[in-house]
C-alpha cells in the first residue's frame, strides 16, 4: 500500500528532562560606573530606573529608555518592625518595613500563629537563632535566572574600603558565596529552595573581617531569584557588623552623615540605599538553570520505506511522459531513491504540528535504514 505517512508506535517516543546552565557574569562597572561615570550623580545614570514611589530601583544593562535594554535586577532595602533601626528611622520608615514584610511573607512564610517569619541567618527556623532584620534585597530578573539560580554557583563581591567613590576598584572586598548550596540548601520556604550566603575576604581575612572564618550574611532563594543580604556586611564589629573594627564601618552617601554603613537607612531613602549598594558592587556572577522537558520521537525509516518522492521534479518532462521517474533514467531495474531534508510530525488528522530539518540532504534508498531522532522541547 502506498503511503507518505508512517504511524509512530508507543515505543517510538520517549520523554527526557535536561538542565541547561548559562554563566551570568555581571561586572560592577555595568551596575555603577559604565553609564554616567563621575559626572553623573548616583541614581541619575541612564541605566537606572527609579520610581516615584521610591520603594525600589531597577538596574538595566543599557540605558533603560532604549528598547535594547535588558532588566538585570532590582535593589531595595528593608527593615523588620522589630529592628533596632525602626524606631530611629525617619525616612520612608513604613515603606522599608513594608518591603521587609512583603519579602519575608513571600520568601519565609508565616509561623503557626500567622505572623510573618523573619529571615533566619542560618536557615534553621525551628531552632530560632539570629534573624536578619536589616537587609538588602536583590531581586534578579527572570531573564537572568531563567528557571532557577544554579546552587553553589553564586558569587558576589562587594568593596569595603572606606570612602569609595567612582574610580578604580578597591582591593579590599568581601566575597559572598553560597558555597555550600550544592549540597546544603534548605527546603522550608514557601518560595522554594534557598541557601545561606557566606562572606569571606578577597585579601588577608583578618585584615577585613573580624575573625578568620566565614560569616553567614544572607540567604539566596534559588527559584525565586532573590538574594537577601544582611546589612552587617557594611558595618564593623563595633556597629554589629562583620568587618574588622580596624577597618571601620563603610561610609555610605550622603557623605558626612552621622551614621554610616547600613545604618544610614535611618535617614536615607531606598533609592539612596540602592545607590550605595550598587556603588560598592565589584562583581556578581552565577549560573542560571533552564529545565528543558523534551520528547524524542524515533522516526524509524525502514529499507523499503520512503524511497520515492512526490516532489514535482522527481518526474520528468521528457518524452517518457510526465510520470516517468527522473533518477531511474529509463531503467525499470534501477533502485529508486530519494533525499530527506525535512521531518514532519503530524496529528492523527494529518495536521503538521512540528517540523525538523537535517543539515544536509540524506539519501534514502532500499539498501539503507535510518532512525531520525527528533526532539521537541517544551
Amino acid at each position, binding site marked *: 500500500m502506498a503511503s507518505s505517512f508512517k504511524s509512530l508506535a508507543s515505543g517510538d517516543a520517549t520523554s527526557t528532562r535536561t538542565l541547561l546552565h548559562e554563566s551570568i557574569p555581571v561586572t560592577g562597572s555595568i551596575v555603577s560606573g559604565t553609564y554616567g561615570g563621575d559626572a553623573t550623580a548616583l541614581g541619575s545614570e541612564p541605566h537606572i530606573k527609579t520610581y516615584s514611589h521610591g520603594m525600589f530601583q531597577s538596574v538595566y544593562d543599557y540605558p533603560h529608555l532604549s528598547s535594547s535594554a535588558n532588566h538585570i535586577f532590582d535593589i531595595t532595602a528593608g527593615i523588620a518592625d522589630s529592628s533596632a533601626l525602626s524606631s530611629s528611622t525617619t525616612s520612608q520608615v513604613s515603606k522599608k518595613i513594608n518591603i521587609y514584610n512583603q519579602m519575608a511573607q513571600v520568601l519565609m512564610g508565616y509561623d503557626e500563629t500567622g505572623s510573618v517569619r523573619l529571615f533566619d541567618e542560618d536557615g534553621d527556623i525551628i531552632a530560632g537563632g539570629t534573624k536578619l532584620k536589616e537587609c538588602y534585597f536583590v531581586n534578579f530578573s527572570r531573564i537572568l535566572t531563567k528557571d532557577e539560580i544554579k546552587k553553589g554557583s553564586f558569587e558576589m563581591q562587594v568593596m569595603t574600603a572606606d570612602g569609595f567613590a567612582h574610580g578604580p576598584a578597591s582591593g579590599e572586598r568581601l566575597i559572598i558565596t553560597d558555597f555550600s548550596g550544592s549540597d546544603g540548601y534548605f527546603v522550608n520556604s514557601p518560595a522554594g529552595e534557598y541557601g545561606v550566603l557566606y562572606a569571606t575576604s578577597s585579601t588577608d581575612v583578618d585584615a577585613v573581617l573580624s575573625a578568620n572564618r566565614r560569616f553567614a550574611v544572607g540567604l539566596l532563594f534559588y527559584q525565586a531569584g532573590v538574594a537577601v543580604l544582611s546589612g552587617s556586611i557594611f558595618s564593623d564589629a563595633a556597629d554589629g557588623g562583620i568587618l574588622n573594627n580596624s577597618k571601620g564601618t563603610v561610609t555610605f552617601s550622603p557623605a558626612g552623615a552621622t551614621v554610616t554603613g547600613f545604618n544610614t537607612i535611618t535617614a536615607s531613602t531606598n533609592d539612596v540605599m540602592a545607590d550605595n549598594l550598587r556603588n560598592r558592587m565589584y562583581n556578581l556572577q552565577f549560573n542560571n538553570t533552564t529545565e528543558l522537558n523534551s520528547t524524542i520521537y524515533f522516526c524509524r525509516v525502514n529499507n523499503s520505506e520512503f524511497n520515492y518522492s512526490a516532489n514535482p*521534479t522527481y518526474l520528468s518532462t521528457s518524452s517518457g511522459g510526465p510520470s516517468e521517474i527522473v533518477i531511474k533514467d529509463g531503467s525499470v531495474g534501477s533502485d529508486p531513491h530519494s533525499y530527506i531534508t*525535512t521531518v514532519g510530525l503530524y496529528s492523527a488528522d494529518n495536521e503538521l504540528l512540528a517540523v525538523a*530539518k537535517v543539515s544536509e540532504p540524506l539519501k534514502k534508498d532500499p539498501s539503507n535504514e535510518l532512525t531520525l531522532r*527528533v526532539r521537541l522541547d517544551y
Partner: protein
Amino acid sequence: MAFLDNSGDIILDAVLTDAGRRRLARGDGTFKIAKFALGDDEINYRLYTPGHASGSAYYDLEILQTPVLEAFTNQTSQMHHRLVTLSRNDFLYLPILELFETTGTTRDSTTNAFLVAVNATTETTSGISTLAGVVYGENTDSTNSTTIRVDQGVDANGNLAVAQLTGDLLETQYQVQMDNRFGTLASANGSAARVSFVDEDNMATYFVSQGSPIVSLITDLTSAGSSINGRRGTRLDLRIKASLNLNGSDTLFTRLGGTSTVATNSVKHIDSVVKVTGVTTGYSIDIPVRYIKI
C-alpha cells in the same frame, strides 16, 4: 584500524508549527503527534546526472550539496512534497495529478485561471455568464457553471496503454486546501464538503474520498475520456462556494485584490490557489483561481 564514523547519531531539533502551538495552548489533548512524514522540498531531482563522466559518485553530487533551509513555524509553507513508500522498487512511472480541461471544465483562456463569480450579479452578467472557465460561486449547482476537474493517473506519454490504474498507485483520498476567507469546497452538484480544519492563516483543509460526490473512478478509457495518457485512476470534480465576505462585501477585494476586465466587464478580483494533494502518494497540484465581482 580506523575509528567508525559515529557522526550519524544525530538529534534533530523540531520547531512547533503555528498549528502545533495552537493545539498545545488549547490544552484539550488535541496536541498528539501520531505519525511522521519525510519531505524534500529543497531538492531538485533534475540535477541528477546519470552517466556523469567522473563516475557514479558524481551523479547526485549537486543534489547532496543542496543547502537546506531552517525550519519555520508556518505549517502551510513546509512539507509541500513528501517522500512516498511504495511496496515495490521497480516502478518506472508514478501517478500525477493533471487538470482535465474539456467542455465545461476549462480555465479562462485569458488568465489561465478558473474565475469564481462570487455573487449572482456577477454570474449573470452578460459575457461572464457563458464564459468558459467561470465557476459559479453563489449558485454552485448551476448547469452553466464550470467544474474544476483534476484527473489522477500514470501519464507515460503513450508508453503505457490506456487502462484502469489499480493497486498501490490508485489514489482514493485527496486533501484539498484553500483560503477559507474566499470560499469553501463544493461538489459539482453544489453540495458543500465538510472542512476538516482551518489554520490561523485561514487555510482550510478538506479530505475527500472516493465515493463522495467529488471523487470518482475514471471509467472512460477513450482518448477523450481523460488528460491522462496511460493508466487512469480517480477524478475530482469540484466547485467553489464563494464566502459571504466576498459575496456581500468589497472589503477583501479592496485590501487583497485589484481590478481587471472580464469579457469587457470591469471586475474586482482576488487571485488565490487551490491545492489538491493525493493523501496516498503525496503528489499535488496547485490550481490558480481568481475570485471576481462586478
